[in-house]
């Protein structure tokens, strides 16, 4: 059964549709939320609440839309809200460390040794940790969920320009960083 059928089922108050969607997307959703919240129980709560929200508003969902991106946007927003509520993470200035993180991601994507990869994973997590939740959300959307900048603008509740500025700034710094590294 594909997402459309599951949503149709759910729209007809058939809870089986929800079961399918949960089974299909829960892992990716919790990982997405975790990358933003850095808090496993919070990530699970976020995804649970998002599924419940989806269930309660499913009749407004247009089946012609793809479910996954819509759902993941909801998860990202809910994760951000959860972090804001708890204020557990000290926000850093926008753009402060995104370049470092992007460089690490790039590096990790190209390593061949598992040992090195594992080490980089730790560094990536640490780099993520330095970012504000909003920055983490931007990174997760772009580099984990593969969303376009315009899609991200909607999720981050900000004008598209703001997001583009964030990413453009990050990219330019990344370019500089890579130039520096290759020069070394």
């Amino acid at each position: 059964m594909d997402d459309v059928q599951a949503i149709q089922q759910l729209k007809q108050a058939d809870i089986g549709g929800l079961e399918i969607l949960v089974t299909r997307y829960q892992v990716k959703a919790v990982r997405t939320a975790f990358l933003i919240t850095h808090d496993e129980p919070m990530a699970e709560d976020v995804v649970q609440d998002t599924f419940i929200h989806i269930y309660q508003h499913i009749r407004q969902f247009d089946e012609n839309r793809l479910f996954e991106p819509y759902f993941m946007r909801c998860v990202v927003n809910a994760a951000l809200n959860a972090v804001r509520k708890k204020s557990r993470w000290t926000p850093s200035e926008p753009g402060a460390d995104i370049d470092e993180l992007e460089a690490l991601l790039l590096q990790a994507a190209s390593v061949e040794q598992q040992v090195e990869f594992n080490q980089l994973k730790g560094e990536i997590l640490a780099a993520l940790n330095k970012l504000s939740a909003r920055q983490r959300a931007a990174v997760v959307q772009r580099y984990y969920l593969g969303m376009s900048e315009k899609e991200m603008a909607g999720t981050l509740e900000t004008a598209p320009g703001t997001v583009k500025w964030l990413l453009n700034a990050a990219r330019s710094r990344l370019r500089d960083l890579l130039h520096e590294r290759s020069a070394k």
Partner: protein
Amino acid sequence: MNITDTSRVLDAVAQEYVPGELNLLPRILSSLEKKNDARLRSRRTSLVLIVLVTVLVLVMAAISIPAVAQAMQRLFGFIPGVGLVDRSAPMRVLAEPVVLTRSGVSLTVSDAILSADRSLLVVDIKGVPLDAYPASESDPGCLGAARLRLPDGTLLDGGNISGGNWSFFQSRLEFAPIPPGVNAATLLLGCIGGTLPGKLPQDWVVPLRFVPAPPQMTINPVFEISPSPVQIGQSGTPAPSQPILTLEKYVELENGYILIGAFHTVHLSNGLTVTGSDQTGIVKITDANGQVVPAEPAYDVQFPTSTSDYSPWAFKIQGRQFSWPLSITLAQAIVRLPEQQMKFTFDTGSDPQAGQEWLLNKDVEMNGYRARLISIRRGADGYAFILQHGPQVVSVGAWFEGTNAVGGGGGLNSQGYQELDETYTGTPPAGKLTVVLSIQTVLVPGLWSVTWQPDVLPTPAPSLQATAGSVCTLTEDNLPQLAPVPASMTGKALLYQKLDQSGAWGIVLANLDGSQRQVIANPGNWSALAPDGARVVYSYDVLYLADLQSGKVTALAGTNGNDYNPLWSPDGKWIAFINSVNGTHISLIVPDGTGLRRLYDDSNHGALAGWSPDGAQLYFTAPGLDGWTLYAIDLATGTVKTLFVLEDASLKAPNATVSPDGAWLAYRDRVMNVYLVRMDGTDRHLVASGPVGISTIVWSGDWLGIGVGNFNAEDTLGLLQPQTCQAYTLPELHGNLEGLRLP
């Protein structure tokens, strides 16, 4: 950087903390169940208020407000032949039918439904010989009590399995819910119900296995309606203290609906009481035109326990195409009058004879209802009371006080009168007798009704009978019905588009039919097509100018990074844009990179909306206290004028754009519909709608290019000329529409 690779890396990072064998479903379902309970509780509280309001409405009598049903989904489903089932936990069914045959008698467990609220088994018994049954009705035979034994030894009672008095009999047994994860049980039956002990094999032991319900199992959705639609009483009818008739749920069937509701015992303003349990069967269902909708009792709906005050009902209506809404009407209520009696003395004489009749014409009136005792007739073993009453009186009691009648009956006689008989075992009484008359039940005209229609009407008529090339409001519904842009209509479209499978997005220019596709920028975003169609400006850190003829791309020297939202002046001599270094600033630059001029420091993250046709004013929108507001910058003086607040504009990004003639502003509202409004804020009207949302709006002349958004796929694009209602699709174009140039 390859997004797929980074996605894999981040997935690996998260995987250490979030394992793949996650299962949130039980938590989600449990939470949903609790939320529904909580809602029910809060609804009960609010019901008091609703009842008070309803009473007020009814007391005012003449006021007639259509009922509004707030329907919500519940976790219930309806299985034909089974009834309502709670679906808050995954359902299970019998893995396979189990047949056990002993001495020619077969016991088959043919079906099982295990839901969160109960476990239902369907058991067929075949081959019971007639001599296995008792000869006398007074001997009930074996009870046939059935139990389910769970693997941990728990025993569940579930009713009786009967052989009936037939060679084939089916029993439906209901047990308590079997816990999730317990997928086996044993049916235990001491003997088959109704048969004589020892005549048939006893102590049946039937092992059962359960499996998850298949996805294709027919489970019809059940919708709870809470609160019930407001009950409206016809003007002049007695006002009830609370609704007599409520509608509680409906089931959506493939070819109809089941309506489930209840009658309630209520007190009427005339002092009478309507008893809920008396009302069943006199409901009328009509459509919006007053036509009667065929309905029959739905016997396979199991009800909550009925009381004298609460009497549930369920009607199945055939068909799904009606003139909505339907009215469920209790045309008149059966009312039991308070116990009252009228007595008088009647003398039969000392030796009344069978067939002797005494004409009395004695009238009785109670609570405004009248009846007449026309006569009393002596029969062979008693008396008959012949009564006459109007149609509003349902039943009248008539008897002799203090006598020992043992039976009686009644009905209409050949003259159309009501006849009540009293019979006696010995000699009927005679002489002076006291006759008691009592009007017992009457009909109170009510026409109390509730109106209902399903949440989602079966096949909603298209909101707009779109014919190719002619719509005034572009919708998701009519967009697919529109004709593609005709070959005679030429032009260029600038698109922000996914360039290839790697996921990279860039700027592309193409003809309206998709031909001559030309990648302008990779990467790149925020682009604008020059009025002459020969140049494109786009942003990527800084602004770049692409000359389409030469293919030359030049970074605009005056821009310093973080520049976006470029917008050409009508004469193509200036580019307005937003720079977001140390705040956001609206700036101007000459396309050759000179003449940078900061116009306005906008701390509110506004967006450019367009130019006036003469290039004297630059419009932008920015969020303010009252919502997104349109401003105009006078380029000569640098002054900024507030024009008007965009009514109900999208909170995130209204994407407001001014038409090239400076007459109209197009923008998105909160649900991403597109409205046009004149530049003085008047004449606001819808031009494009759809729940998915409109992603982009661009103008070319008096044509609007509109992208109907798909979240991670590309937009569906269309063209609309609002004044003429001409509209076309652009099926060969994909992506976000950033610019349009129609000759």
